């Protein structure tokens, strides 16, 4: 029989060991479990298909017949289904995490917003927003051209050992590494964890 103080000691040691699990391992493993849940209940995780589905749905409401005129929307469907609900869930889940962290009950991992400057884009906020806008445009255009993004091709594709996933990951990272070296100054500061 263990005494009460011993049990308390064990439980506090267990809690300490959970907290000492590094953030990347905790949240990375949770994303892996979400992936298994998604594959058990519907399909592997995917994000970027939902963008044209949702945008197509909204534009079709605003101008009826839009979805029928566009070949792409005929193929993927301008509909609110599992994919769009998943994407809305990602936004709401992040909103919840943000709200909790502002209340102080769950602190996200530390680290500055952006410790890097891009040549030609430093200084004024409007130039930084322009850079973010251009980047945002390209990630969606590129993801649709490749028929998947970081989630669909890498998290899900590589987890299914798909050759398309390995190819997408290799090319996207190679381009990203090269672009970062050419466009950015070296970032200040080390690891965020």
């Amino acid at each position, binding site marked *: 029989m263990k005494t009460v103080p011993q049990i308390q000691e064990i439980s506090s040691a267990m809690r300490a060991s959970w907290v000492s699990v590094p953030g990347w391992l905790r949240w*990375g493993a949770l994303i892996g*479990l979400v992936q298994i849940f998604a594959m058990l209940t519907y399909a592997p995780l995917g994000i970027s298909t939902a963008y044209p589905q949702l945008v197509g749905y909204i534009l079709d409401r605003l101008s009826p017949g839009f979805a029928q005129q566009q070949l792409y929307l005929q193929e993927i469907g301008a509909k609110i289904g599992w994919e769009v609900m998943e994407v809305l869930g990602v936004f*709401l889940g992040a909103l919840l995490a943000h709200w909790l962290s502002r209340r102080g009950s769950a602190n996200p991992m530390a680290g500055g917003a952006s410790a890097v400057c891009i040549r030609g884009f430093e200084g004024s906020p409007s130039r930084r927003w322009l850079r973010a806008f251009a980047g945002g445009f390209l990630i969606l255009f590129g993801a649709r051209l490749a028929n*998947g993004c970081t989630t669909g091709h890498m998290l899900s594709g590589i987890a299914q050992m798909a050759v398309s996933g390995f190819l997408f990951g290799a090319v996207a990272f190679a381009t990203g590494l090269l672009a970062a070296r050419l466009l950015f100054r070296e970032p200040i500061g080390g690891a*965020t964890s």
Partner: protein
Amino acid sequence: MSEKWLGLITGLVFGYALYRAGFFQCGIVHRGLWLRDFTMLKVMLTAIVVGLVGSTALDALMPGAIHFKVKSLHLWGIIAGAAVFGLGMALAGYCPGTVLVGAAGGRKEGIAALVGALTGTVAFIYAYPLLKPVFFEVANFGKVTLPSLTGLPAVAVALVLAAVLAGVVGMLSRIERTRANQTTRDKEVHSAINN
């Protein structure tokens, strides 16, 4: 439970985890692409290893329980799309999933990138008829996976791949530790000289 609710629940936990892992800030990607911080890579690789091992094991134990959805290998679309995507990721510091997390976190760059993402979506819808013949129909090899390509059993390939990816995570952690020790030692040397 209906499909829509399952999607919402899946997304809620996914978005929460992405925020807590730090993906609401574009700096995590910028430092990652400069190879100064491996958090981005370690989170992704951990998620892939758990998903890979879990789905392969469940599929072997309960055939039919796992819904696989392998994307086809349309060579030119994937190469061109991934290159455009990589440039965009470097510029914005977000991908289509984390841009939502950045915007939800109130980051102005995240909101600007989300507006860009929606604009890029509309542009793609209009451009698709022109792009389809070259990027989707030529050199499309269908749903190719490592087991189908090599003819080896999926469980064996999955175990080897999971071990390799876990090995990479371990290597990245070791590099980070070495760097941290180096920084501490440099500081000690500096303070010794200054004193």
